[in-house]
């Protein structure tokens, strides 16, 4: 661990922002004000932040349907994200994308993705751009345990290996593809699959920010140095359902409560930095308070923001037509 005090504060702020953003969306969704499908990332914060702390704006990530955490970790504007989720014109995608398609190409955030397994080939494309134009950039493909069984993921990993692309595949194994347990749905071992493509991989405790950060740092450095693709298998958990409204009847009754009490990535982070006297509790409390104000502003702003105009229906289909 070689993170400065500023890095640690930034990491905590980012993880807190994701957590509070998702808790707020969860609460607001229950009121019926948020349209459509929402898939929340709470519980998995150490993954998005641990990985993206090692990336810059020129680096790209391809995300998933559970994409809010990746967006925030990559630097997307939280007010713009909340407005997007509410379908407002001021949203990051002008209200045309919604929760499942939040993107900010200027930040290298290539989009959440409504298609499970849709992102891995796109990340290979971003890595191909970096390699062809010799920009030194790296791409990260986030995907869940569901996506790990899609053909696109296997094809992307093989292509990355064959073309020696600067890409890192991050498998966020939260235990469930929708309602189906990954222990059942993944035949064999994802690490062995990666090895089969000639891609080195490691399994990491996805609740442990520091473990994720260090593994991602090594994989991203390897990609940047021309060493080709790597694979991270993160074991973690989501606190909410596959989608908001999912009763989670497939989970054990005390499962989430136990996870929150014993394996929460923010709690583990706080304990670690406080015990090592890297950050004092007051500084961490201050971050939480700042984030709470930010989320409150974003939510109020989103609710008050205007909807798209009727004419917006027909724009942005083509550059020219």
């Amino acid at each position, binding site marked *: 661990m070689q993170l400065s005090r500023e890095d640690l504060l930034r990491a905590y702020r980012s993880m807190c922002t994701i957590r509070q953003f998702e808790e707020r969306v969860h609460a607001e969704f229950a009121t019926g004000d948020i349209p459509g499908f929402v898939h929340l990332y709470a519980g998995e914060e150490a993954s998005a932040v641990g990985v993206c702390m090692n990336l810059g704006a020129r680096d790209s990530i391809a995300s998933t349907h559970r994409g809010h955490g990746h967006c925030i970790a990559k630097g997307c504007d939280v007010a713009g994200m909340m407005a997007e989720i509410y379908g407002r014109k001021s949203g*990051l995608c002008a209200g045309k994308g919604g929760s499942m398609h939040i*993107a900010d190409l200027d930040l290298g955030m290539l989009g959440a993705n409504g*298609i499970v397994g849709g992102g891995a*080939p796109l990340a*290979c494309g971003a890595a*191909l751009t970096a390699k062809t134009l010799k920009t030194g950039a790296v791409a990260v493909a986030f995907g869940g345990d569901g996506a790990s069984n899609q053909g*696109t993921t296997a094809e992307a990993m093989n*292509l990355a290996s064959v073309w020696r692309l600067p890409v890192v595949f991050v498998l966020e194994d939260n235990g469930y593809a929708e309602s189906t347990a990954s222990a059942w749905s993944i035949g064999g071992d994802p690490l062995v699959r990666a090895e089969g493509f000639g891609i080195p991989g490691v399994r990491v405790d996805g609740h442990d920010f520091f473990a994720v950060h260090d593994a991602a740092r090594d994989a991203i450095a390897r990609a940047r140095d021309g060493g080709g693709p790597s694979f991270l298998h993160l074991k973690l958990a989501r606190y909410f359902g596959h989608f908001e409204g999912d009763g989670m009847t497939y989970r054990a009754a005390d499962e989430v409560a136990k996870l929150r009490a014993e394996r929460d990535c923010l709690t583990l982070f706080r304990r670690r930095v406080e015990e090592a006297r890297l950050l004092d509790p007051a500084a961490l409390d201050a971050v939480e308070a700042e984030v709470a104000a930010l989320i409150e502003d974003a939510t109020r702003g989103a609710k008050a923001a205007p909807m798209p105009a009727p004419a917006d229906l027909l724009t942005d289909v083509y550059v020219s037509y």
Partner: protein
Amino acid sequence: MARKSFRQAVNEAISQEMARDPRVIVMGEDIAGGMGAPGEDDAWGGPLGVTKGLMPQFGRERVLDTPITESGFIGAAAGAALTGLRPIADLMFVDFMGVCFDQIFNQAAKFKYMFGGKARTPLVIRTMYGAGFRAASQHSQCLYPLFTHVPGLKVVIPSSPYEAKGLMIAAIRDDDPVIFFEHKMLYDVEDEVPDEPYTLPFGEANLTREGEDLTIVALGRMVTLANEAADRLGGQGISCTVIDPRTTSPLDIETILEEVRATGRLVVVDEASPRCNMATDISAQVAERAFEALRAPIRMVSPPHTPVPFSPALEDLYVPDVEKIIQAARTAMAAGGRKAA
């Protein structure tokens, strides 16, 4: 200006654009060929030789052979287009879209809209289509109506070597995803093709024949057959306009409407399967917007609603031909009222 084949015309367009813009790359299965194999480099230049010579000219970094992995490399091409390259991806046969359609219609086609207008996806997907090659059901289809259906995609169907070069250069310079359809029976057709680069516009139909009695709209390889039918009908006193729309998305429906209003009769020739194809689409738009101008029912010339058969005896029955177009034209001429003076 020199006589060049359709194959040469496409090759020349790509080569000239690659020389002009270092962001243009080519990728696909056997696009150079022989990757990792002990024999010749550039062994194939694509399965029918269309990209032959590009790899020696531009190197392996810009002419990328791929494994047989259409979801993987078509998706990678979409991602590369989103991040600054201008890829030309070769989906060898359009029939293979079944294994990569998600990357085209859910990803590349929708980036711009889903992301609130901020994305550009300058991607060209070249693909072979069409029957007549004895290639049977999985290598002979005309699936351009499926792509035309998807907002966000542009669909180009060149009918000749001259058209192919100008439309390919336009496709490469376009900032939207373009599906470029190459009929495999056209590759050896020759035409006068200028040596210098030029573009032809999308959404602007080309009139290959001008007449007064009947309008024929035809696409791709069918344009040649429609021209021949028009010439023969002309010899029999029926004067035909032939419209090649060039692109089905955007579609120059205004020119079609204008010509239908002038002639009062319409035949649409489409090699695609007859349900929900371009013939039905064009006919519906004409019926909706120029019904009063029609002097006879619209006639559609399309194959039967069957897979493309293998046996030459059956495939030759399947594909629309000049006789069928002439028959449709005669039926259209025989029906309905006389043209007002």
